[in-house]
């Protein structure tokens, strides 16, 4: 408010000053003679009442005092600091004005002198402007008036709605149309409240109920149905342009957005008071912290309203100014019927909304942290909001963390024990070490380790060890091994590492050989000495038969024990043995000799990861000392370590996982600067976070917060003249097919004023009187005569009220896209009526979406259509075809088109054919004489008339000759009935509610 106040004060002071003069002063003369003509002939065309480019007006003193986007145009007494003069000269980076023909030097000099002399300007000129209107006009605008409590006309005998409507009808000599018949009425009510057709039994029950409140009972039943929220929640999701993708160039999926969708449905089902409903959507995260704890999660989820704002461009993080515009635009239209978004670049052209208003709200949202969905430039989502309150989460996670800490402590002590054993073994090894061969292989290389000349005498308990060493990085990644020891003389036994380990691998480390000796093969991490590896993973990466012993990620020994190659980081052939050294140490396979005698050692190593970074080396050693004791000592420690690792893995797998919402939290609070002409690169003055000037411009009190809580209070307030009216109008709209204000998202000067202003105010007052509850309004509306009248107008009203603006009959409407699909599934009895959860999006660590290959998958479901995936950059083929809501912009009311591509759906769509065939099967289960009845009952929820029966029989007769040729009469019958089902399901009677 203060800028207006400031401005008014200035004007007031000026008026006082001038009033004292009483005669034409010298400075008046200067202005009239040399300044006014210049301004009026050269400036005002672009900076006046018609157009005010850059927001600047030069047709009054107030105009240049307030100035345009860059602030005041003239600093009286200071020509050098006056933007007007800079512009006239084209200085200081400003475009020279006027652009086509600049002023002459003499003219500019005249203006400069005038400014230097104090810029005396006698033009009281024009009323004080507020956006596109004047303050006075804004104060008088109908939608900004406080709600009135209009007197209900008549004698109080009628439903007030009827009383209000009857006045205007009577003026034209009209009355309501006769009451709709009961079948029509229950069908109308059921679609209006649940988006589904009534079940045939429900129709029967209503037809049979002769009690005076039969219809009221139907309405109550429908209002308590869980499908009510799925219908009315959808109206809300239309308004808030709900979608399951972010909308930036690669259209990243929003795996958590569904919670908001379901929250909306649930809120309608619970009849959450509308003010609470709004407050939680705007500031649920802040309210959640105030308790109660059991409502924490849902309040956080509610702020999905803000989070689902559209994201833009390649790097959506860098384009949040567009997202805030989307938030502000949607917020203005959906909650208050105001087109605030128009004021991003300039003051609203028609309504009382300024650019400063826009940036005051902008500051509130820029002080809020929106969950980040990921985008091509930054594919990892972040800032999802946990559903658990911080304290609650701590108490959930603590036992888990304690248990982990206990395991870690035991692991540490096991590691120390292991270290001691390993050092002992190392000491023993070092004393008797004989290197048999060493070498290296380069990338993609392969070498034999011994050239076949490696005969050695061994005693039982000695070890032959093949170590693979890293060269530079990870050492050629995976290295395939052959390692064989053959007894010379004796029983001529052989020990082949691959053969033995393929089978024995899962049984433990060390592994037995194939001659019945335990503890022959040792898989070792030799960093710091010959340490037994303790961690075993079966079916690594989900690949059956790919088993590994390892210490952490590396070093590791693998076998692919399956009969087929596996594709992991590389292709590992069937039934092979691999090792992978660590970047900082070796991996080794030791053979602990079970015999005393002479053996020959052979084998080869081969780079198994083509194109890996570099080669590996090897060392083949013989330890001529009995190493059994320190090695065997490692076994029990290793088993313990293995057990601990397994327990830790299990624990981590089952860790309490915080569920997340796609929501918002408080960010860094700060006022936003104006963006001149909407360009974020041209920043102007900061604007305090505050409420719209036309409603008082109160600033945010708690500057440590974003201001959303205050904003929520300003909007969801009984004192806000728009909120209750706008929502009351929407409820009316979805019953009668049009709003009392026919432009439901625009209550401004460009919208259409209410056809029945008293009725609107009365309805809004009732809404408030009922504590912002919506269900009582449904009852009120649906029990009126206006709602219960026939869709067929009496002859006279089609002349007097052709557009039905007086409500002289009920307005027939086509089913919405969702209703069409849900009804098709309902009549085939294939509709899954349970609510849906999340969409089966791929896990986020697999996302590689780009603008070239955006996310674009439509998941099938037999759930209700509100649960279909909504993709911003690809219209859902079915919903798009039947005028579904725009997932990119608020949709206050669906369009209804009748295009031939829709007719093609009813002619040829496989889903439609399939469902009709199922309906036919349901009908064919009946005896022949009741089939026509059954079909009409299922599809149209009514008994066929005599004509209908004749129609059905006639059709089947005509269809019969063509199907008689069919060798299988059952198939022919089924086809004929399926066709008849399609006809009824494609008919206008099916598609329209009346």
């Amino acid at each position, binding site marked *: 408010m203060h800028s207006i106040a400031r401005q008014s004060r200035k004007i007031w002071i000026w008026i006082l000053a001038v009033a004292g003069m009483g005669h034409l002063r010298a400075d008046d003369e200067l202005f009239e003679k040399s300044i006014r003509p210049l301004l009026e002939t050269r400036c005002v065309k672009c900076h006046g009442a018609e157009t005010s480019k850059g927001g600047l007006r030069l047709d009054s003193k107030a105009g240049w005092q307030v100035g345009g986007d860059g602030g005041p145009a003239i600093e009286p007494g200071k020509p050098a600091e006056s933007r007007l003069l800079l512009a006239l000269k084209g200085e200081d980076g400003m475009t020279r004005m006027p652009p086509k023909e600049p002023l002459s030097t003499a003219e500019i000099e005249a203006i400069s002198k005038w400014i230097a002399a104090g810029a005396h300007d006698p033009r009281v000129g024009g009323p004080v402007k507020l956006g596109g209107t004047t303050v006075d006009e804004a104060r008088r605008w109908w939608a900004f008036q406080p709600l009135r409590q209009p007197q209900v006309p008549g004698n109080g005998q009628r439903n007030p709605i009827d009383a209000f409507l009857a006045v205007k009808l009577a003026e034209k000599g009209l009355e309501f149309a006769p009451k709709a018949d009961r079948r029509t009425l229950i069908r109308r009510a059921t679609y209006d409240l649940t988006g589904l057709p009534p079940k045939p039994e429900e129709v029967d029950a209503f037809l049979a109920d002769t009690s005076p409140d039969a219809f009221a009972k139907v309405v109550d039943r429908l209002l308590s149905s869980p499908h009510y929220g799925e219908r009315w929640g959808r109206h809300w999701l239309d308004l808030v342009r709900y979608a399951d993708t972010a909308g930036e160039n690669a259209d990243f999926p929003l795996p958590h957005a569904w919670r908001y969708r379901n929250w909306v449905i649930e809120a309608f089902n619970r009849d959450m008071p509308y003010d609470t409903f709004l407050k939680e959507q705007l500031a649920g995260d802040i309210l959640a912290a105030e308790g109660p704890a059991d409502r924490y999660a849902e309040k956080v989820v509610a702020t999905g309203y803000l989070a689902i704002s559209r994201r833009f461009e390649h790097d959506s993080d860098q384009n949040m100014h567009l997202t805030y515009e989307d938030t502000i635009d949607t917020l203005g239209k959906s909650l208050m019927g105001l087109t605030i978004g128009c004021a991003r670049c300039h003051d609203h052209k028609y309504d009382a909304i300024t650019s400063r208003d826009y940036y005051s709200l902008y500051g509130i949202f820029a002080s809020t942290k929106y969950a980040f969905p990921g985008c091509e430039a930054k594919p990892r989502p972040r800032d999802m909001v946990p559903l658990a309150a911080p304290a609650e989460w701590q108490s959930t996670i603590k036992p888990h963390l304690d248990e982990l800490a206990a395991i870690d402590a035991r692991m540490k002590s096991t590691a120390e024990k292991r270290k001691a054993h390993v050092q002992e073994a190392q000491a023993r090894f070092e004393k008797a070490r004989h290197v048999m061969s060493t070498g290296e292989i380069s990338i993609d290389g392969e070498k034999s380790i011994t050239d076949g000349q490696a005969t050695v005498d061994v005693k039982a308990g000695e070890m032959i060890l093949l170590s693979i060493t890293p060269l530079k990085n990870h050492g050629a990644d995976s290295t395939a091994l052959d390692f064989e020891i053959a007894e010379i003389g004796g029983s001529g036994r052989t020990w082949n590492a691959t053969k033995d380990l393929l089978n024995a691998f899962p049984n433990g480390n060390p592994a037995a050989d194939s001659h019945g000796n335990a503890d022959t093969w040792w898989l070792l991490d030799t960093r710091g000495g010959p340490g037994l590896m303790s961690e075993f993973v079966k079916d690594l990466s989900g690949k059956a038969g790919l088993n590994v012993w390892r210490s952490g990620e590396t070093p590791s020994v693998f076998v692919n024990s399956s009969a087929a190659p596996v594709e992991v980081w590389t292709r590992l052939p069937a039934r092979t043995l691999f090792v992978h050294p660590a970047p900082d140490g070796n991996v080794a396979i030791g053979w602990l000799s079970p015999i005393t005698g002479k053996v020959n050692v052979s084998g080869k190593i081969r780079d198994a990861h083509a194109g890996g970074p570099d080669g590996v080396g090897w060392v083949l050693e013989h330890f001529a000392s009995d190493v059994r004791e320190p090695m065997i000592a490692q076994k029990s420690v290793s088993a313990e370590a293995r057990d601990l690792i397994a327990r830790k893995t299990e624990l981590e797998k089952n860790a309490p996982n915080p569920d997340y919402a796609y929501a918002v939290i408080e960010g860094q609070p700060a006022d936003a600067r104006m963006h001149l002409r909407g360009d974020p690169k041209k920043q102007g003055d900061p604007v305090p976070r505050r409420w719209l000037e036309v409603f008082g411009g109160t600033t945010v009190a708690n500057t440590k917060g974003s201001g959303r809580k205050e904003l929520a209070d300003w909007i969801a307030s009984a004192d806000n003249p728009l909120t209750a009216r706008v929502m009351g109008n929407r409820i009316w709209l979805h019953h009668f097919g049009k709003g009392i204000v026919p432009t439901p998202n625009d209550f401004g000067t460009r919208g259409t004023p209410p056809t029945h202003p008293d009725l609107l105010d009365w309805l809004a007052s009732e809404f408030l009187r009922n504590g912002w509850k919506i269900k009582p309004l449904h009852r009120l509306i649906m029990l009126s005569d206006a709602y219960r009248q026939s869709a067929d107008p009496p002859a006279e009203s089609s002349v007097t009220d052709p557009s039905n603006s007086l409500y002289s009959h009920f307005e027939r409407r086509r089913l919405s896209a969702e209703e069409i699909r849900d009804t098709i599934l309902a009549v085939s009895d294939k509709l899954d009526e349970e609510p849906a959860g999340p969409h089966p999006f791929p896990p986020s660590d697999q996302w590689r979406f780009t603008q070239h290959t955006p996310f674009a998958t439509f998941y099938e479901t037999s759930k209700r259509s509100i649960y279909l995936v909504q993709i911003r950059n*690809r219209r859902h083929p079915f919903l798009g075809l039947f005028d579904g809501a725009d997932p990119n*912009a608020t949709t206050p009311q669906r369009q209804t088109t009748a295009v031939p591509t829709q007719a093609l759906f009813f002619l040829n769509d496989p889903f439609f054919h399939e469902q009709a065939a199922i309906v036919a099967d349901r009908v064919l289960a009946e005896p022949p004489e009741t089939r026509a009845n059954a079909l009409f009952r299922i599809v149209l929820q009514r008994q066929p008339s005599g004509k209908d029966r004749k129609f059905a029989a006639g059709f089947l007769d005509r269809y019969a000759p063509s199907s008689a040729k069919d060798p299988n009469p059952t198939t022919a019958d089924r086809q004929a009935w399926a066709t008849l089902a399609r006809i009824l399901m494609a008919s206008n009677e099916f598609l329209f509610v009346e």
Partner: protein
Amino acid sequence: MKAFSRRRFVGSSLAGSMLMPGLLSEMLAADSTDPLAPKAPHFPARAKSVIFLFMSGGVSHVDSFDPKPRLIADHGKQVTLDHPETRNRPGYEKLFLKRPDWKFRHRGESGIEVSDLFPHIGSQIDDITLIRSMHTSHSNHYNATLGMHTGSFAFARPSIGAWTSYGLGTENRNLPSFLVLAPQMPYAGTQVWSADFLPGSHQGTRVVPGAEPIANLKPRVADSGRQRLELDALKAFDEEHLSARHHDPALESRIRSFETAFGMQTEMPEALDLASETDDTLKLYGLQRGQSEGFGWQCLVARRLVERGVRFVELIHTGSSNNWDSHGNMADHGRLAPQVDQPIAGLIQDLKRKGLFDDVLVVWTTEFGRTPFNNTAENPGREHHDWAFSSFLAGAGVKRGHVHGATDDHGMRAAVDPVHVHDFHATILHLMGLDHTRLTYRHAGRDYRLTDVHGEVVRDILA
């Protein structure tokens, strides 16, 4: 064109079995509730329909239609630029001019230079108005593609085809008013042909090559006699329903939509079927007999569609991948150009032969150009360039053998008579008889336009 279509309709197999579509379209014209009924333009139109050829990914102007001798002479010279694609980009601290990879030649009587990338189009240059001073507002594919189609570079808005359909309706109700032949999905997806807030009837209908070019076009009831029975019964049932009610245009137009759909099942495949075209015609487009895909197929189908009264036909070459986006190597332009060069030249010749060239406006464009520079002169690719590119118009209402505007010496910026995307749109609408400032739609309190608050008709190119 109209007379020709009539003859087709009367001779079509549908006549006699149902309301004749030719008459139907006249009946519809009289029905003010039909959003697609033909409407009078703001002023006499020069073009009755548009064929909009869109090359996805960004065609290099300096390698195709914009010869720059200085770029060749200065090859390898360093330039200092604050360019959106290289600003703060590692490895792009220094920028060097880079000469074109194709030789330019004077072509036709007009002598306009076109490179060897498009020799066939070059051979038709005397029938083309080339705009060498195009520029746009975004250097990202998605946004520039959206801008080229809707005039909006961020927000979803109606497409130019939808605006045209909204402004003029359509002549033939057996076919949609706005058809998009797009074998692959373009950048920005279906927003490219969206009606957005305009009535849904104006939305582009996507046509893909193959068995079912439009969703649910192929009769599922194989026997057309049976489908006729089904439709007749549906109509009888609906009319019985209607007879018990007062006049309701919504019910009536839905009944009619089934007849149109029935017609579309025949007329659409027929329009897409090239069997009746002569060998000569196929040759013109570089098509083999029996070929039913490729850009040549798209171009010839486009001619057949405008012949049948479709208002706006868009052909998208490639899509959001494997397209003209030759960052890696400009040689890829050499792979793509032959796919479109002869078909486009063939389309121009064919329209002339058929006497359609005075009624049909052919528009060729891309979303932006490619940089006349790179981070080394040897870098084989070029980056996105929104400062300048080339487009062309041919046919109804535009000059022939004419060049409009120019870029600077190196093809860097549109320097002489720059034409922004908004100006381009204003000009196309103008040729269709529509004043872009008067073609508005009231949505959410604002009168929206294709050109937002911008756009000047490029009068210099009008014939």
